[in-house]
């Protein structure tokens, strides 16, 4: 099963979470161009993946019953990992992760404010399964994964989880508070250097009255949280910014009646979405996420992708297509030029190693030690990425997870490796082919071989295969060659 198509694999690692051997073959048959089209149109691919939870043949979830991803955050984490492993819409899931980082919102603070079950619901509930159709934030990110960025920001500004996380729910006339407005300017759109302190003040006034409503008692399972515009709490005065708000160049949002005041926020978000700094910032973030973290995005990439974003009216489908069709993405130097995030490492390892009898529940604690707990970014800036993932503690945590996974799969791996039992070389070849690390140089390759040969003469017995295949998979999964994708 020598690998046929390095570019398809590159694409599957970046646009998705890697591929199982079967998936890889199917996508290689289909070709990258058609696969990109398919990934960019997730709604045209059926999405039954949640129905597979608990079914044989799929990665497991906790044995706890009932499995309650709409009200227990740990079950929601498992369901998300399950989706990453098995979805047929990998790019939608990848973009949901991108937006989770971009609009980083942490469950912990929300649980403190709303209680744990309600916090899990506003973070992760599927509306179709919720008694009052609460839409969890991650469902918003899935829905708008490849949608219009301006519309996404508007939805985020009205999202119950965000209204709690950045305290918008208590932003009132007269004494506005700045949390949401500052991060909207600094992190969600323009970036530091493109706005002033006065812009923060004006921005916080814009969103006065964008509050959170609760229907029902806090502890009821069907308590409902939703955005509510409170006209009485809106600051109706004019607000001036250091950048144009309207096409004509005007920098001032006019004074409006309280009833019409919600338009202030729409006008500001529209201006922020259309600002060149936002286009460039998104282009840079997409470059780091999909292309390379080793170098800053080249100017022509930023111009091309940022330009596509602006010309398309903030359409992420067109923008992300421009990323994947860029020469930078296809360049040989962008292969394996990105450090895998912990969840990417975990999911790819599961997809490439196998999952018979393995539960994503076993990944939750290791992910915390690796530095990435889903629904719990460390702060509104999201996770520190790139080399920051590789502290000593996190490297050990990756190795420990790899050991757990390899140990759990050792019987299946032995059976699959039995065709390659004739020599240590062929066994190493099988493992390197099965997984998709970047090239091992002669030195570390020799070390892998020496490990197979350690402990006695190679006979290729079942017992040797059982131990050494799992051991090899572990060594490859925790090697530096496997930490890049």
């Amino acid at each position: 099963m020598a690998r046929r198509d390095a570019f398809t694999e590159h694409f599957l690692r970046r646009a998705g979470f890697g591929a199982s051997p079967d998936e890889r073959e199917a996508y290689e048959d289909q070709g990258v161009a058609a696969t990109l089209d398919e990934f960019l149109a997730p709604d045209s691919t059926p999405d039954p993946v949640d129905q597979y939870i608990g079914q044989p043949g799929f990665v497991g979830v906790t044995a706890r019953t009932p499995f309650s991803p709409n009200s227990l955050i740990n079950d929601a984490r498992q369901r998300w990992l399950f989706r990453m492993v098995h979805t047929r819409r990998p790019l939608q899931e990848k973009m949901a992760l991108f937006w989770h980082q971009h609009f980083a919102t942490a469950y912990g603070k929300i649980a403190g404010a709303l209680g744990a079950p309600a916090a899990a619901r506003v973070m992760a509930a599927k509306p179709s399964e919720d008694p009052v159709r609460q839409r969890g934030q991650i469902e918003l990110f899935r829905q708008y994964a490849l949608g219009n960025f301006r519309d996404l920001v508007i939805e985020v500004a009205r999202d119950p989880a965000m209204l709690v996380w950045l305290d918008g729910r208590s932003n009132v006339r007269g004494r506005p508070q700045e949390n949401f407005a500052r991060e909207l300017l600094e992190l969600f759109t323009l970036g530091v250097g493109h706005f002033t302190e006065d812009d923060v003040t004006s921005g916080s006034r814009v969103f006065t009255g964008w509050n959170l409503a609760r229907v029902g008692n806090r502890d009821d399972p069907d308590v409902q949280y939703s955005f509510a515009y409170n006209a009485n709490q809106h600051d109706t005065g004019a607000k001036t910014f250091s950048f144009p708000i309207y096409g004509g160049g005007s920098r001032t949002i006019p004074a409006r009646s309280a009833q019409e005041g919600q338009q202030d926020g729409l006008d500001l978000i529209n201006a922020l979405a259309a600002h060149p700094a936002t286009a460039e910032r998104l282009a840079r973030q997409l470059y780091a996420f999909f292309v390379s973290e080793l170098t800053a995005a080249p100017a022509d990439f930023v111009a091309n992708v940022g330009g596509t974003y602006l010309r398309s009216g903030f359409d992420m489908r067109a923008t992300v297509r421009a990323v994947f069709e860029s020469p930078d993405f296809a360049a040989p130097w962008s292969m394996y030029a990105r450090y895998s995030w912990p969840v990417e490492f975990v999911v790819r390892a599961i997809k490439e190693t196998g999952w018979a009898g393995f539960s994503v529940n076993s990944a939750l604690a290791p992910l915390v030690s690796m530095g990435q707990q889903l629904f719990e970014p460390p702060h509104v800036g999201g996770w520190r990425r790139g080399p920051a993932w590789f502290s000593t503690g996190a490297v050990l945590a990756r190795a420990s997870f790899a050991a757990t996974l390899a140990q759990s799969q050792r019987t299946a791996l032995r059976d699959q490796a039995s065709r390659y039992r004739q020599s240590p070389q062929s066994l190493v070849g099988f493992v390197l082919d099965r997984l998709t690390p970047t090239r091992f140089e002669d030195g570390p390759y020799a070390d892998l071989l020496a490990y197979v040969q350690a402990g006695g003469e190679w006979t290729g017995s079942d017992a040797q295969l059982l131990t050494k295949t799992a051991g090899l998979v572990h060594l490859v999964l925790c090697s530096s060659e496997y930490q890049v994708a």
Partner: protein
Amino acid sequence: MAVSRRAFLEGGIAAFTWSFAAPGFLSDLARAQGASTRSLVVLYLGGGNDSLSMLVPYTDPAYYSRRPTIAVPASTVLQIGSDRAGRSLGLHPRLTGLKGHFDTGRVAIVQRTGYPESSRSHFLGTDIWSTAAPGAPAGPGWLGRYLDALPAPADPLVGWSTSRETPRTLMGDVVGVPAIPSVEGYTFATPSTGADAAAARQAAQRIFSHVPVNRPHLAFVNGTAQAALATLSRVASVAGDRPSLTYPTTGLGQALRAVAGAIATGVGTKVFWVATGGYDTHAAQNPNGANGAYMGLMATLDDGLTAFVSDLANRGLLDQTLVVQFSEFGRRIAENGSQGTDHGAASTMLLVGGRVRGGLYGTAARLDAAPDNPGLENNGGDLRFETDFRSVYATVIERWLGADSVRLLGGDFRAPGLDVL
């Protein structure tokens, strides 16, 4: 042999060369040095500490008029006297343990620390405090530069981050600092046991020792992994330490327990990093309620720090230990409509240790928003800094670490009046 390769941080802006000099034989050297090692513990309050709730100007009427619901009542503060401007100050009522250590002269409080044109961004602000370079806050941290300047090869445990990652403060161009969030969890697992596990571990050690040609991003990971393996046994030895008292179960308490264990075990670490979060109190700050947000922060801080100081004092180790606390900014003077405070400018630093010259340093500003009030900035909204935070760093570098602050800070920030050590 040192592994040296460039690694690339966020956005590819800063290029670091990290070296995890990993040889295990250095551990004996480190142990031999351990007895005389001075330890510096950097304590970061993440989110921007509202210093006006921690150190309360309880005789300033503007403090109460501008904070109608969240001011700490004068009747509840722990009075600690007046600063040299004659302004009376009191600690937050939950800081009872710290007050006790203040009374015995082990706590220095430096008011209004900051820098010109304070950034109100958490991330830029943190980078500035970490690098001590307000103009260009990229590149290595101020303590990373200190570690880089130590005689090479640096011992792999010369620094120790109790967080899951190595903070920029401790990032150097040359020396890499391990992140050890849990002493017990710091192990290398294999899928097999016995002889095969030993073989697997040896193989891993060899694989990580290679320097992938022209692939520095892989070499960086290998260097980190080598450092992890090289420090396992010494970190495990810290797990055997028994403190003289029970630490709180909070993250801060347990991190400080590990630091005390490392100091007591004499593993030779010079610089520790400890962080505690939750200080971004935009809403429902409630410093007075028994379950209020800020009361909780002060409880975590006081219980953890007090246990640490008492434990080290009990074991005769406090004289070789210095804690320096900072936060990326202070908060607005006036409360917002959410009973919280927004991002501000100057804040307060604490220095705690057996050799600290305790007391109040700096002066409290008048808090009235009059345009001519020199202590405020941002139209009277924020505290203007009085002591450049780099002056505190300079004192720590010169008088505690015994290094050249002018070289490490890229300028002379020594302040003669800042006799905190």
